[in-house]
Structure formats: C-alpha cells, structure tokens
C-alpha cells in the first residue's frame, strides 16, 4: 500500500513502543487490519507463507525464493524493513543455528484466529441481536457521515475566507482537535487556516480521516484514554459491516468515550449518546481499505445549500477537467469544493453544475504563499480528475505511465513554485566513515531500497538519509556479522577454511 492514508498511519505506528504492539496484536481484528492495510504486497505474501510454517524461515531460504533481480530485492528489503518496524517479523535462528526470520507470536496467533474464526475475543464487533425498532438505512448513514465530515472540512476551509466562515457549526471538541493538530489557528475569535490545514484539505478523504484520527490518538492520553484501546477500536471499526447495528456492551470505558467523539466526526452513528447500539458509517468501514470513503466524494451541498438541489448527487469522485491551455472545468455546485478550488485557481464563471477557472501564475503563486505546495495541487487535481481524463490513460494500456493531467501544465505548476524557492531543506542524518568501498556501496544500496536515501556524496564517502532507525539497525547487524565472521575465521584458522561472509 502506498497511499498517503496508510503511510500516515504507518508513520504513527512505527514509533510506538514494542509493548504497545504486543497489546495491539492481541486482537485478531487489529492483526487483520494491520496486515491488510499497512503491509506492502510482498510482505503480505511472506507473512501468509510463514503463518503456518512450524519452523522459522531461514534467511537463505528467503534469498532463494525471491528473484535475484534488483527490483525484487528492493521490494524484499522494503517488505522486511516494514515488517520489522511493525514488530511483526523478528530475527531468529532455525534448528541448524542459521539466521532465520520468525513471526511475532502474538501477531501470528491473532492472524490465524482471524482467518479461521473461533476464540472468544469478540473483536469483530458484537452485532445487536435484537432488531432496531426503526432501522437505519445505508443512505441515511451516508448522508449523516457526509454531513458531519463536510462540516469539519467546511470549518477548515471557511477559515481561509472570512466571508464563508461561521455558517457551519461543529462541536467544540472537534474545534479543539483541529487547533491541536494545527489545522487552524485561533487569532482573536476568528479561526485561520494554517499550512498543515491546507495539506489536510487537499488530501483524499481516507487520508484526511487518518490524519485527524492520529491527531486524536496523540492527544488521547491527555483525555484520560488508553491509546491502545483507541487504536484497536479504530481497527475493529474497519472490519464492521455497513448498515448493521452493533452493541456497545463489550467496550471499555475509553472506547465508550471514543464513541461520542467518533459520532461527531461522522464515523459512527448513534441515535443518542446513551444508546446501546451504534452503526458504523462508510467512513468507518473503509478505514482499513482502499475503497473510496464516501461514495460521493464531491461533498454535496447538503450542509450549506438547499438540500433539495440534488443535482450534485450524481457527481462522483472525479469532477475536474484540466486542459492543456490551463483552463479548468469543475463539474460541481458544492460551495466547499469551489472554495477549495479557489485556493489555487482564479475562478472565471459559474453555472448551475459547472465552474470554470484558470490556473495562472498569480493564482498558483498565491497558493504557494499560503503554504500549499505544487505537489499538493497536482495530487489534488490528479485524484479528482474527471473520468474522461482517465479514459485517455486507460486507452494507452500499453503505457500505464501516461499521466492523467496534461504534462505541460504539471511542469509549469512545478516551475512556478521553483521560481520562488531555490533551496529545499530536509531534516536527516549524515552517515560517513562507513568502512570499505564495498561496505559503503552496500549501505547506500540498502538505504536506497528503504527509500530513505536523499543524496550521496560518493567522493567524500558519506551519504544523507532522512530516517535513521532502520539504518542503525542495519549497521548494528553488519557489525555483529563482522565480529562473528572474524571470530569464525580465528577459530577455523587451524582448519584452513575461511568463514564466508553472508551477503545481506
């Protein structure tokens, strides 16, 4: 998975202490959700192959299994690194004492339980066994979720234009959360959008939810909540089924408290805050999937305009057509979308179901002034491109890399940004004195495979990485191996054989 949504959750999970993972993996639903959502494809295959393996998988066995070309090796290294940082995979030794990998006991047990069923963990949600007197339809849940979520977005975007703000109300808790995540900053009584607020707005909806939830998680200990309970409940939510009511009977106090906040976000629906049943909305059931979070992502006008204008109900995920002459046509009548567009385009005219706009140097640079980056604009335009623009891409099946947006426009947006900035700064670590040239090469290759390498200065024998934890583990492993090899060599000196150093 490479979508921003899971990346965000992954970043959060990676820094958790090991004990938290052990607690998390007690729940089969969590194990399943993490397996499905956070792992790269090859890692899933590895985990599944090892799940019912009685002995640890030898490192050499894995080397034989993975094809020896560069791309596969890179994929393998990435898979192993993520598995290790999520504490799913551990180094071990097999019966013959060779280096091997084994799965985390707790994770393997929970995943097996998830696949076979059984146990008494009740982590996949306890459905209400009595029918609701007034059943809630899926349509109602969708509308509810959309209304709640749009209100939040509208609050954020509204704070960019003083003229728009104030027309929607969101709960004080959510408002505080948005400030906590620094999406809006309060100046006086007026909320103002910040740079991370823009980043938030331009993400796809699933990533938005995770962003907000992670802010929530980070602050959860301050609200007398147990973060593990929150996290495992969120993963449970992802495995629930839409349109079915679940009972609150087996929830912890933390989770009960969480229900209130989640219903403010529109992630679950409860009729009242003391009701013993709750319905997950589509926002919840798609938390751990790739499916579009709201069937109708164009955020209909339900919050702000007359609900009877259902013209926008047929609009779908993609609504923007961008031409090579920088003209932009957006099939939408939602004030929210229009105000998002107005952040980086200059609007021309508006029709009942269509807005025309133009990308100009002035409009893009104004957006950059606000803290929006060109990449954000491009990814927003790409994710919301009209199906007609994608059709062009699909017709060239042979060349899947055909860009969705006109390349000239994409380049120009980047160039406009570059005009303003001549320097990019990255936080990170400089690694030098790596040892022999061969070891240096290997370390650089490893860093590249992990995707943390920024720049290497070959002449000076040093390179720059953005993340250190994986690299330091790598160097420790290297050092240990070297020592082992040296010892072996010493021990075997009499026999005349030379200890062979394993390639990593």
């Amino acid at each position, binding site marked *: 998975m490479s979508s921003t949504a899971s990346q965000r959750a992954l970043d959060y999970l990676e820094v958790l202490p090991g004990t938290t993972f052990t607690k998390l993996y007690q729940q089969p639903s969590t194990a399943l959700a993490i397996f499905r959502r956070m792992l790269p494809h090859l890692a*899933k295959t590895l985990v599944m*192959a090892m799940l019912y393996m009685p002995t640890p998988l030898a490192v050499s066995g894995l080397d034989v299994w993975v094809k020896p070309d560069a791309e596969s090796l890179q994929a393998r290294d990435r898979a192993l690194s993520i598995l290790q940082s999520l504490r799913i995979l551990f180094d071990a030794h097999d019966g013959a004492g060779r280096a091997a990998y084994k799965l985390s006991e707790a994770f393997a047990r929970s995943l097996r339980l998830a696949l076979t*069923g059984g146990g008494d963990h009740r982590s996949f949600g306890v459905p209400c066994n009595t029918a609701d007197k007034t059943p809630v339809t899926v349509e109602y849940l969708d509308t509810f979720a959309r209304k709640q979520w749009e209100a939040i977005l509208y609050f954020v975007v509204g704070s960019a234009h003083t003229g728009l703000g104030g027309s929607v109300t969101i709960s004080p808790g959510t408002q505080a959360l948005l400030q906590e995540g620094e999406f809006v900053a309060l100046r006086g009584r007026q909320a103002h959008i910040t740079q991370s607020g823009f980043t938030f707005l331009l993400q796809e909806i699933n990533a938005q939810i995770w962003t907000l939830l992670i802010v929530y998680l980070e602050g959860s200990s301050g609200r007398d909540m147990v973060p593990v309970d929150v996290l495992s409940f969120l993963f449970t939510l992802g495995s629930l089924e839409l349109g079915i009511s679940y009972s609150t009977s087996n929830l912890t106090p933390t989770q009960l408290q969480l229900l209130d906040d989640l219903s403010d976000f529109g992630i679950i629906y409860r009729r009242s805050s003391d009701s013993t049943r709750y319905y997950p909305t589509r926002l919840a059931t798609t938390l751990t999937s790739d*499916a579009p979070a709201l069937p109708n992502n164009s955020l209909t006008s339900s919050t702000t305009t007359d609900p009877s204008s259902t013209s926008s109900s047929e609009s779908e*995920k993609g609504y923007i057509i961008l031409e090579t002459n920088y003209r932009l046509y957006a099939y939408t009548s939602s004030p929210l979308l229009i105000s998002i567009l107005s952040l980086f385009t200059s609007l021309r005219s508006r029709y009942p179901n269509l807005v025309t706009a133009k990308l100009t140097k002035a409009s893009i640079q104004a957006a950059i002034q606000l803290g929006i980056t060109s990449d954000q604009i491009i990814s927003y335009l790409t994710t919301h491109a009209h199906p007609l623009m994608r*059709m062009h891409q699909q017709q060239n099946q042979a060349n899947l890399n055909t*860009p969705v947006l006109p390349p000239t426009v994409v380049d120009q947006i980047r160039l406009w940004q570059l005009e303003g900035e001549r320097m990019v700064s990255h936080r990170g670590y400089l690694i030098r004195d790596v040892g022999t040239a061969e070891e240096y090469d290997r370390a650089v290759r490893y860093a590249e495979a992990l995707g943390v390498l920024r720049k290497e200065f070959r002449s000076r024998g040093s390179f720059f990485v953005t993340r250190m934890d994986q690299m330091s583990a790598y160097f420790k492993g290297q050092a240990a191996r070297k020592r082992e090899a040296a010892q072996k060599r010493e021990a075997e000196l009499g026999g005349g054989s030379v200890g062979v150093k394993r390639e990593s």
Partner: protein
Amino acid sequence: MNAVDATDRAGTQQEVEAPSLLTIILDTNPHAWALLADSLPLSKAVANLLVFINAHLAINYANRVAVVASHSERAEWLYPTPANARQEQAESNGDGEHGNRAGTGGAVQPPDDANKYRPFAQLEYAFMTNLQRLMRTTTPAAISSAPSTMLAGALTRALAYISKPSAATNPTTTANTHFNYSDPSSVAGGNSLNPSDDATTTSRSSQRLTTRILIVSVSGDLAETYIELMNAIFACQRLSIPIDVLKLAGDPTFLQQAADTTNGIYLSLSTPAARAGMLQYLMCAYLPDAAARERLVMPGEGEGVDFRAACFCHKRVVDIGFVCSICLSIFCEPLADGTCLLCGSHLSMANYGQKPAVVARLKKKGRKKRVVDGGGADTPGSGGGTPVPG
C-alpha cells in the same frame, strides 16, 4: 533543481496492487475422495481450502473469490450461490427478505458471530451450505453412472464467470459505467461478488482485475473430455489466465499441460505426508498473485511436462499417433477408409508400413506421423510420409 523533467511525471502513479479474482475449481468426485479418505478426507481438504480463501481475501480489500465444484456428473457453483439455489433456499426458509440480501454474494444470513470477520463468515456459510446441498442431491445412480469428474464443464463455467468482470474493466465497455461509480448499493464491508458491484472497484483503481484459476484435482482419467478441456485451456492461454493445479491424486497428463501452457503452477502431492501439509502448500505456492509472482521464484519451473495427447477416436492417451493434415485431429490408429473422422477430408497414406529407404534422403520436416508400434529402438520412419489430402 532537476525536479521538473519528463521522467518525474511518470512516477506519480499510485502503485496500488490490482485486485485479484481467484476462481477455485474443486474436484468433488466422490470416488476419488473415497480413495483418499485415509490421508486427506474431503472435510479436511475443505477446511484447508477455506483458510486459504480467507487468506486470499485478507490480502487485498478488493480481492474476490469464486468456487466451482466439479462433481461427478455436473459442475456446480459453490460460491457465490447461484441465483436459482438462492431462491430455493429463501423459499425453504419461508423468508423472502433473504432473497434481497442475497445480492451481496452471501446466500443466506450466517449466524452472527463477533469472533469472526463477517465476510469470512458469510463466505464460509454459503460455501458449506452449497457443498452440503450438492452432496445431498447426489444420487447413488449418478455416482455409479459417472465415475469421472466434470472438469471441462467446471473450467468453462469458471471462464464464463471470469469474463464478466474482466469485460467490465475493459476500457471500451467501461465508458458508460464510469459515471455511476458512486453506486451506493455496493456494500463496503463485504467482499461482494456480485458483478454489478464491479464498476465501483474497477473504475476506482482503473486497473485490470487480475484473474487466476486454481484446480484442486483428485481424479485421473480426463481423456473422455480431452477436446473440451484443451479448448478451455487454450482459451485461458489466450486470456492470459494462469491455471494453477494442485494434484492430490490421479494421473497428471492434461492438467500438467494446462499449468504449463498458461504459466500456472503445477504441484503433485502424491504421498500422504505431502497431502497432510496441503495448507502450507496452498499458502506458500498458490497464494502469491500475479504481482507477487513477478518477485518470487515459483515452484515447479523447469520440470518435465508430459505433453501426450488423447486420440479423438477412442480417447486413448497416445505416445505416437496419426494426425490429419487438414484439421490436425489426432487418431491412435490408421483410419480405415482414409477419411478423417472430424473434417471428412480424404487422406491417402502412400508408403505407410514400408521399410525405410536405405539410401539417405533429405528428411521431410513438419508434423511427423509415426508407426504406433514403431518403438523407440527402430529408426523413426523417415520414409513414412505425412498423409496428404487425396
């Protein structure tokens, strides 16, 4: 500062794995399973298979699965529940509501269980119900009259099923469906198998659905349906659908060819010990989908494949046979009147049966026709000419 160049644009593609549709053909031939009862009874094999299916569904949210039973006298869908069986069930339950719900792939409501992921529970319930019904409706007469299995029929049904969602991902046909992918009827929590939901999944990722077929086979002797089987295999080859074969018992000939032609995996678990580890074989060798297979070395590559064919006249598996030069049909013995049984062309066999000429001649290239009892020790009949239309 070199961020703006043409190579950079291409990199913006999201590398989300394409969903994959796994169609499993389970050979339920009662004769063959009875023979395996000691080492691997059907119930155990099915339990293993269910874990495997769940693992497949767990890998990707949009992954889907279908199971066909290749029974002794007919091929039957086990999952998703076919429409007519759903009706029967709904009627027998006296509950019309189930008929509506059934559109989501699950046959009827499984018992609610908080300890099992709902899509898994639904699948398992539907699968087991259908398998039980299949076994219940099998009459002793049917078993005794048909000792083999309807593999060709099952394969054809699987292909027909696969072609539906595949056609939906075809760009020329999706143009119309593109505009309604906000279809709210699709169920988010379920691994829905209803083809009407395809528009949602496919248009979202704009990626092709990758498909593959897994045949769990226990019966030998498929020569009866040789032509049908080979046609289905070649269809798979054309559609580039790999056929994976897990052979638990029986003679491998044609299925090994099937896996070989379609780049699938063929493994034969011939010993009881190997059969006991069926689940591990499934998880290790058969679970990787097309994307993972690009990265992994798959088993069974480079093994010798039995390429023998079955003759069209008596369904015998032949090492050496006679080939009609017009329609390429294969016969195990020379035709009595020199007329091809299939295309009716008149074939003459000039020097058949004569001793080869002693003087070295230029060998004729092309399809060779050799003597049945010619054996390997004899010089191959270089003089025996290819039958020519007379």
